[in-house]
């Protein structure tokens, strides 16, 4: 190649590149001009995209961030997550070292359970102090108490379960005393015991071991260490639930023993190595309390926490075969389950998100239709289809980029903003900023959601633009408009049929799973969510076909229009009947919105109503009384019954036993009294009615009422005899006759399964006659139910019961205030709030759509109004007709949408139970909150009318002559 060729070649090449560059810049300028000149359309589309994507991003960021905060905060509320014990005392130091070096362990504290003695000073070495009720000098007795020797720093964790009067400190020379022990000391010393009181205390290094025949013990036996002039820093009461301390030493309101309620806490640092060695030698086994590192525990997500904790337990138990690790697995599992439920429940927000995306699609369609003339102009100027599509694609890229950036920003802000309102409903800057500290954005989810929304937007844009620029192609495929309609309808029907088939399949799958499940476990939650996803499709299609029917009906009821609107019906009916420029597009979207709106409201009211019913049922009767310490049941029944206004009070005798390998709580009641006092419901007994079941139990002294789970699992049925074994502190077995199968009972909750709202110590209970339990020597209990007369003020009666003993908790607002579900709602709104937010969003989406769509249609009709006004039509009349026309659509869609909402709700609640509640104690039945529904509907109506007034007024302001001229 010579020099000349080379020159030509490079010149050609450079001109090619510069042509491409210039072309690109030209198109870019054109796109920018288009966007600038279509500010309104641009804003509508960006708002639609940002709205859709923001909601999706918010839900993603929110749940990802929330789970970290929930996990950290929940772990912080737990005293410890594990305790370790071993029967090889000498190995405990090695265990400590091993555990201390495990990265998951944040803190390990010693605890020595022993006994403390007070008022020992004048007792001789041969003074018989044990058993307590039979000690030598009952007029000047030793005061005996359980004692827990713990490290000073551990009090910072243990105190989370305590309500302390005074200081929550355990420095050298200080002790913490329980409320019960303080009262005992008052009797012994005959002085008021309060924080700051100074006394002597003896910590025993040996305690009686009844297994070795030590049923009595002299003072010299205990090998005590005496500590003089110790100050009571605080007096505590145990108020915790779900704690390691409770599991280790007992003491919850429904826990066994209540040791911690009658005890003291002593600083381990004040004991010498010799003391500890002697204690070890005497078989007082030390335990290790383990606090984990929350950040590491939640690695892999909140649902991974139980497994991570279990792994730690396994690591220790495998390394030290002689060790036993107790973990709060049930509590952490419950938290994981509740979180999963709350998280899954956010899927109820999906219809709202789908509606937001749908709104974007419709707005895009409207915007492109508005630009039909522009496309025609471009074509008339010689632009190829590719160039026109390219221009729209360029606009898409620019708008999408802006919308994406804005959506991520809004998503982050909203995700932090919504939970910042917390429980009290007021904005908290601290909560808001804390969210940013924990901020967790999943790029994968953001990408998926962005592709979903922008993909739909791009698809709709391209389909619409192509259909406008390539009509020739479209028409060659579709012979006639009618044919096109038939094909379109057939495709929709086919898609509907497929969706219905999918829904039926998933629904049956859910039902089969539900039949096999006794609780709402993860599998059922998952099945419920999947069914919901397809059900959303069914709703969309259902509303679509309902709207087709509604439009057909509206176009064929001229008589009704004449009856209602009289002379105005001429224009209103004909506008509704017209084939083009009509508002019938509103029908589908509005039917869908009203259906979703009413479903949200009804599912919400159904859930709230059910929660209230369940709470009342769990409470059991007019008055529920829980004693912090077990009290004599017959004595308290009498005391409570003697209060004026109380008709009857019953106490529950209970003992832990076993059926097969399962621990159960055996409740003993008087069946006739329980029938009278308890708030029984129809579904308490699945196979018989309550009166029969309880009468049969009363008539059969060895009768037993079992859960359906036990009966089915072990093949027991009514009339069959069975054994209950291993009564704790009682006989090894007792024979019973099954008299009924029970699902749940008032005051006791569900018979089978973990009911975290009840905070029971077992997952299973049975009901027997009380005589069988009292026959085992059980006289004390912690639970009472009382029935009051019709005209009695319950609060007054409750106060009188409280006056009997400060240990009594009467009508607690929450039976288990530490129920994890209450905790999670501080971070993820409860399902009822979510449904309300969904309803509000749907309302907003509906109003936005009505406004956009109406404005578009009215714009198309502008010239018609000019003609009408030229012919002498009055503005007020035309305005009125328009408002009536739109109202017809809104009202008609409300009339159709609400029944559809009822059907949706009825179908929805049949498979959404696992998302709506943790246990179905009371059957979920439809409850319509008419007031809330009316408020929402009226709000929609008013807002829609207010929304359309502006475009209508705008239409009326156009100059007639100008509009008529524009026709030419």
């Amino acid at each position, binding site marked *: 190649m010579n020099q000349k060729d080379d020159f030509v070649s490079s010149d050609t090449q450079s001109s090619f590149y510069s042509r491409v560059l210039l072309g690109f810049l030209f198109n870019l300028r054109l796109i920018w001009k288009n966007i600038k000149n279509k500010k309104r359309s641009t804003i509508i589309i960006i708002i639609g995209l940002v709205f859709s994507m923001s909601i999706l991003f918010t839900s993603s960021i929110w749940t990802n961030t929330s789970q970290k905060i929930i996990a950290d905060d929940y772990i912080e509320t737990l005293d410890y997550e594990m305790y370790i014990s071993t029967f090889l005392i000498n190995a405990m130091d090695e265990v400590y070292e091993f555990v201390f070096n495990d990265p998951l362990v944040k803190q390990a504290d010693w605890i020595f359970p022993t006994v403390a003695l007070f008022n020992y000073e004048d007792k001789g070495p041969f003074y018989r102090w044990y058993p307590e009720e039979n000690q030598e000098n009952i007029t000047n007795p030793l005061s005996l108490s359980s004692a827990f020797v713990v490290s000073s720093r551990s009090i910072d964790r243990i105190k989370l379960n305590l309500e302390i009067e005074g200081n929550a400190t355990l420095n050298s020379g200080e002790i913490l005393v329980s409320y019960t022990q303080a009262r005992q000391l008052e009797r012994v010393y005959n002085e008021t015991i309060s924080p700051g009181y100074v006394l002597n205390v003896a910590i025993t290094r040996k305690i009686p071991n009844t297994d070795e025949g030590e049923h009595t013990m002299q003072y010299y036996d205990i090998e005590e260490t005496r500590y003089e002039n110790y100050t009571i820093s605080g007096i505590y009461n145990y108020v915790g639930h779900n704690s390691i301390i409770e599991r280790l030493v007992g003491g919850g309101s429904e826990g066994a023993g209540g040791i911690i309620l009658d005890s003291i806490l002593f600083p381990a640092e004040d004991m010498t190595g010799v003391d500890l060695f002697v204690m070890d030698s005497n078989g007082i086994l030390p335990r290790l309390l383990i606090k984990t590192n929350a950040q590491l525990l939640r690695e892999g997500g909140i649902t991974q926490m139980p497994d991570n904790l279990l792994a730690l337990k396994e690591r220790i138990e495998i390394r030290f075969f002689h060790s036993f690790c107790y973990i709060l697995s049930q509590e952490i599992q419950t938290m994981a389950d509740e979180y999963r439920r709350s998280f899954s429940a956010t899927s109820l927000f999906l219809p709202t998100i789908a509606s937001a995306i749908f709104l974007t699609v419709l707005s895009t369609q409207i915007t492109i239709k508005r630009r039909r003339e522009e496309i025609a102009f471009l074509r008339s100027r010689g632009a190829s289809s590719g160039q026109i599509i390219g221009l729209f694609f360029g606009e898409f890229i620019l708008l999408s980029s802006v919308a994406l950036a804005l959506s991520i920003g809004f998503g982050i802000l909203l995700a932090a903003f919504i939970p910042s309102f917390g429980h009290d409903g007021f904005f908290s800057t601290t909560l808001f900023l804390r969210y940013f500290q924990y901020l967790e954005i999943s790029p994968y989810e953001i990408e998926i959601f962005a592709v979903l929304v922008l993909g739909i937007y791009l698809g709709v844009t391209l389909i619409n633009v192509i259909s406008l620029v390539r009509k020739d192609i479209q028409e060659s495929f579709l012979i006639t408009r009618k044919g096109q309609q038939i094909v379109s309808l057939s495709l929709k029907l086919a898609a509907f049929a497929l969706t219905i088939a999918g829904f039926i399949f998933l629904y049956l799958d859910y039902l089969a799973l539900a039949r096999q499940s006794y609780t709402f476990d993860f599998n059922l939650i998952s099945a419920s969510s999947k069914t919901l996803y397809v059900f959303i499709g069914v709703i969309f299609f259902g509303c679509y076909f309902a709207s087709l029917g509604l439009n057909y009906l509206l176009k064929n009821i001229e008589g009704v229009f*004449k009856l209602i609107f009289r*002379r105005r*019906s*001429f*224009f209103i009916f*004909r*506008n509704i*009947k*017209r*084939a*083009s*420029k009509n508002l019938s597009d509103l029908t589908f979207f509005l039917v869908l919105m009203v259906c979703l709106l009413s479903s949200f409201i009804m599912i919400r009211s159904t859930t709230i109503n059910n929660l209230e019913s369940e709470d009342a049922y769990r409470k059991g009767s007019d008055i529920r009384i829980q004693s912090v310490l077990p009290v004599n049941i017959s004595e308290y029944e009498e005391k409570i019954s003697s209060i004026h206004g109380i008709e009857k009070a019953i106490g529950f005798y209970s003992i832990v036993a076993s059926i097969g390998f399962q621990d159960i709580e055996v409740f003993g009641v008087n069946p006739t009294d329980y029938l009278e006092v308890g708030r029984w419901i129809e579904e308490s007994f699945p196979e018989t009615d309550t009166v029969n079941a309880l009468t049969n139990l009363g008539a059969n002294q060895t009768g037993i009422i079992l859960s359906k789970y036990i009966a089915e699992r072990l093949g027991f049925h009514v009339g069959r005899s069975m054994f209950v074994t291993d009564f704790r502190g009682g006989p090894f077995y007792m024979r019973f006759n099954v008299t009924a199968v029970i699902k749940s009972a008032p005051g006791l909750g569900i018979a089978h399964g973990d009911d975290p709202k009840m905070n029971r110590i077992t997952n299973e209970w049975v009901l027997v006659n009380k005589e069988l339990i009292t026959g085992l020597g059980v006289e004390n209990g912690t639970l009472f139910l009382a029935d009051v007369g019709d005209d009695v003020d319950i609060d007054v009666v409750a106060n009188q019961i409280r006056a009997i003993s400060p240990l009594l908790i009467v009508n607690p607002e929450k039976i288990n205030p530490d129920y994890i579900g209450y905790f999670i709602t501080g971070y993820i709104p409860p399902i009822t709030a979510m449904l309300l937010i969904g309803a509000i969003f749907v309302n907003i989406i509906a109003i936005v759509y009505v406004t956009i769509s109406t404005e578009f249609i009215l714009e198309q009709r502008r*010239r*018609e109004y000019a*003609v*009408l*006004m*030229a*012919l*002498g*039509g*009055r*503005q007020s*009349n035309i305005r009125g007709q328009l408002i009536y026309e739109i109202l017809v659509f809104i009202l008609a869609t409300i009339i159709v949408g609400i029944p559809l909402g009822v059907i949706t709700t009825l179908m929805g609640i049949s498979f959404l139970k696992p998302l709506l509640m943790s246990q179905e104690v009371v059957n979920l039945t439809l409850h319509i909150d008419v007031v809330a529904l009316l408020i929402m509907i009226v709000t929609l109506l008013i807002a829609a009318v207010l929304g359309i007034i502006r475009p209508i007024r705008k239409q009326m302001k156009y100059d*007639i*002559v100008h509009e*008529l001229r524009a*026709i*030419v």
Partner: protein
Amino acid sequence: MSEKVISADKLTKTFVSKAEELTVLNGSSFDIYRGDIVCLLGISGSGKTTTLNLIAGLDTPSSGRILYSGSNIGEWTLNKLYDFRLQEIGFIFQEFYLLEHLTALENVMVPMILVEITEDEAQERALELLTQVGLRRKAMNHPEELSSGERQRVCIARAIANHPSILIADEPTGTLDSKTGDEIMNLLLGIAQQRQMTVIYTTHDPYVTKLANRIFLMQNGLVVENGQSSLDNLVFDETNFKYKFKGGKT
């Protein structure tokens, strides 16, 4: 002498846009009497349609006034103006302006419904009117199913539905072929004569003026009348692209 129905007094109309100010009427004055058949003649943009719009109360003059039976339209309330358009004016548009979603019958019913006649009565009268314009058999057809001539017949029927005293037609034959145009004009003027209506129509076609008894020439924003109705009095100055009356008065 007949009663004066419309009286225009020094009418001006200026259209203001971002680019320019365009004065279409510049102090026009004229009187129209009951029973007159007035033709406004002028080239495109001479102000014919603007004058009709002002007479019909669809537009307001920049200055000057229009009196209807001695009453200044500009001083009327909106409602009175609506009633005037509805009951006193019948307007026939060059582009028909039929409502596409209504049938021919319903289009004719529109003014009657607006005047609050019952639908049944309006339908009966509309059918009579369509019969009168020769379109009864196409009463149920939509505008898109009608020819241009038929559409204009529907417009005529619609215009006379409320028995207006003034019939205004803006280039009623503008979009029609000459044969159909003649038919339409004959129909329009026949009905007007029968109903003793005042007719004001515009055209830029000098041959359509032959049916008028008065010709107003729109020129330089002014309305000029020489008192003769014959087409023979008009000449078209091709050099200046203007109509003028014989005798030099432009």
